[in-house]
């Protein structure tokens, strides 16, 4: 089936077209602001039409970062989905708002096309209570809908499924214990048992967890409060700093990408790389303890090409501690880009 994949950001729209013939196109429309995603979608339509993608009724898949507990699986786009999106808007206002706008525009630009929403958080809806619960009162957790999420569920799920398939081929007959490492702008490590996530590094928001390209990752909560208070930034200012000026870029002192940091030979990247790899080492150890050992390590994400750097640093430690099953030292790569993963979602419907 012909498929159009849409990944809305706030100021950009990534798209991909997959035609039955095997032809594909991918790209990003940038620079729209208040006009909303409608104009960008019109552009996408023109591009995929030129490929002949619209000759056969295509299906459309829209990427959602956050769907909360309302969306434990991909859904068809429609009135019901929009209502449910509005219900989860308060948990992630910025992303859900742009998703609603995109969803409405999709109905106008691709009328009649079967459209689906696929969420990064769906994979983590049933994260065990012991992992997703913060150590605050249940009343507060309930009031703020406070719980841990993962934000690269599509990668983790597909990569873990692929890893499990290969392990079965090699004769493993119990649910495999998979360490899934997603190398993206905001990297994330999950422990997956069979096809269920057991731990994940991110938190109530993508700020927590491993340091990313601009986000600090985990810090002492007292530091966040001190930034807002003693440092005089206020909560909004502290947030802007932690979300936009910290992480790898903060450590290096200029805007960097994850792959720059992992592979650069420049001196100013060394410390950021060490900090990132150190945190990945700890997260991997924690995941290994959660799983009771690791049968396979699988890498995915936009910067999956940098897997070797991480593997060479982290895996020997796991091995020395004894947590790595012998065959797991042969780490796997799940190289499919996000667009491809999403397109698969369409074929599953």
């Amino acid at each position, binding site marked *: 089936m012909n498929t159009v994949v849409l990944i809305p950001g706030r100021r950009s729209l990534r798209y991909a077209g997959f035609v039955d013939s095997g032809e594909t196109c991918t790209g990003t429309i940038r620079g729209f602001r208040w006009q909303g995603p409608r104009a960008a979608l019109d552009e996408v339509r023109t591009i995929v039409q030129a490929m002949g993608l619209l000759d056969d009724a295509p299906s459309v898949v829209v990427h959602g970062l956050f769907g909360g507990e309302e969306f434990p699986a991909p859904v068809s786009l429609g009135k019901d989905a929009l209502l449910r999106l509005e219900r989860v808007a308060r948990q992630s206002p910025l992303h859900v708002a742009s998703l609603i706008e995109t969803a409405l525009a999709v109905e106008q630009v691709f009328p009649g096309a079967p459209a689906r929403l696929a969420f990064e958080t769906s994979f983590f809806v049933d994260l065990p209570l012991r992992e997703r619960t913060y150590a605050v009162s249940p009343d507060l957790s309930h009031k703020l809908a406070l719980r841990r999420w993962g934000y690269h569920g599509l990668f983790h799920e597909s990569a873990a499924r692929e890893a499990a398939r290969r392990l079965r081929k090699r004769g493993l007959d119990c649910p495999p214990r998979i360490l899934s490492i997603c190398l993206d702008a905001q990297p994330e490590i999950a422990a997956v048992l069979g096809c269920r996530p057991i731990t994940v590094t991110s938190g109530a928001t993508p700020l927590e967890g491993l340091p990313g390209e601009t986000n600090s990752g985990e810090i002492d909560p*007292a530091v966040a409060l001190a930034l807002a208070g003693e440092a005089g930034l206020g909560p909004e200012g502290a947030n802007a700093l932690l979300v936009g000026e910290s992480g790898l870029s903060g450590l290096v002192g200029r805007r960097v990408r994850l792959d720059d940091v992992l592979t650069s030979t420049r001196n100013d990247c060394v410390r950021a790389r060490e900090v990132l790899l150190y945190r990945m080492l700890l997260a991997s150890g924690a995941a290994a303890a959660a799983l009771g050992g690791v049968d396979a390590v699988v890498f995915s994400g936009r910067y999956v090409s940098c897997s070797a750097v991480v593997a060479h640093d982290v895996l020997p430690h796991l091995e020395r501690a004894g947590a790595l099953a012998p065959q797991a030292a042969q780490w796997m790569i799940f190289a499919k880009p996000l667009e491809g993963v999403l397109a698969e979602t369409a074929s599953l419907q």
Partner: protein
Amino acid sequence: MRIIVFNCGSSSLKYRLIEMPGENQLAGGEAERVGPKTAEPARIHHQVSGRKETIVVEMPDHATAFAEVMKLLERDPELVPEAIGHRMAHGGPNFKQHVILDDAVMAELERIQELAPIHNPPAVRLVAACRRLYPKLPETVVFDTVFHATIPEVARSYALPAALVAKFGFRKYGFHGTSHQYVAQEAAKLLGVPFAHFNAVSCHLGSGGASLCAIVNGRSIDNTMGYSPLQGLVMSTRSGDLDPAVALTLLVRAAGNGAAVEAMLNRGSGVLGLSGMSADIRDVVARAADGQAADIDQLTVASQVYLWRIRKYLGAYLTLVGRAHCVIFTDTIGEKVPYVRWAVTAGLQCFGLDIDPQKNDVAGGLPADLSTPASRVRILAVATNEEMAIARFSHDLLSHTQAERIAL
């Protein structure tokens, strides 16, 4: 040398008189209700070789409490202290060793008080009072953070902009260092490993605070607590790790009242917040085990969240340490609650941990080895003794007058 060790709480003063290097405890006790008058009178529970007495005496401040304790000891010439050892929670960025008190040390202690606004100030006032009242008595200061001074830069750095870190000093300090070091040394002795080659993960699970420490070659290389004691494990009333965005959200919801949010995260969260019934994990576990409890779901989650966090950090630190000689459990929960030790180590054979449920359950006299003979990594329960550790450090410092001291 008779060393009196002081551990100063906000309204209490614990003391032990220890003969060094023999490590004989000669006397000890605790002054209670130090400070402004309360409903009950202030008093000192004093103990000398098994004989207990309680003295009721007004103690408006720690200086008076100190003077009263000295009076009690001076009744017997054999109990007159020859040196004073102080426990200090926070040593700031510059104290990388325990120190003998002098003017420069005093000035630095006063300068860094605000880093630990609850714990340091009363202790600093006590140090000053001791100096004033007994200027001839040598004093030492032993810091909870010093053992963690060896945590490498990569582990103590937060991923924050350098300029900000330089200005405000945000970094991991780590706490409970004196206890971690003491139990690690005891464990190394027990296993016959030279401390300089000793690797372990130490679990200080207190009835208040709790932290894990990764130790390689007898040095701390990481601790779960951070810039403040709030980070890391789920504790009796502290939340431990929390998405910083949540902390900021709470701040907005408290209309910017940072003190209220800090109080909630430090004193109203953790086991107490989760369970809604008790800050003591023992109560929660016991009640959750009684299947009839109405709040059983909430209690089960509370104990699972508490245990799960320990287990994850245990895996993280075992991976970091590589070939650990042992995992050490200490302090109230670590020493006395077999269920916790079992729940966080069971099923971790992959890390070389094989706990013996029977040994674990009956472990009475500490130290005890709780692992099966097949366990590659030993699992030990070791009683912590911070006062003894402080006496050791103090004795070392005072008997090596030319001991190396990092200049401030």
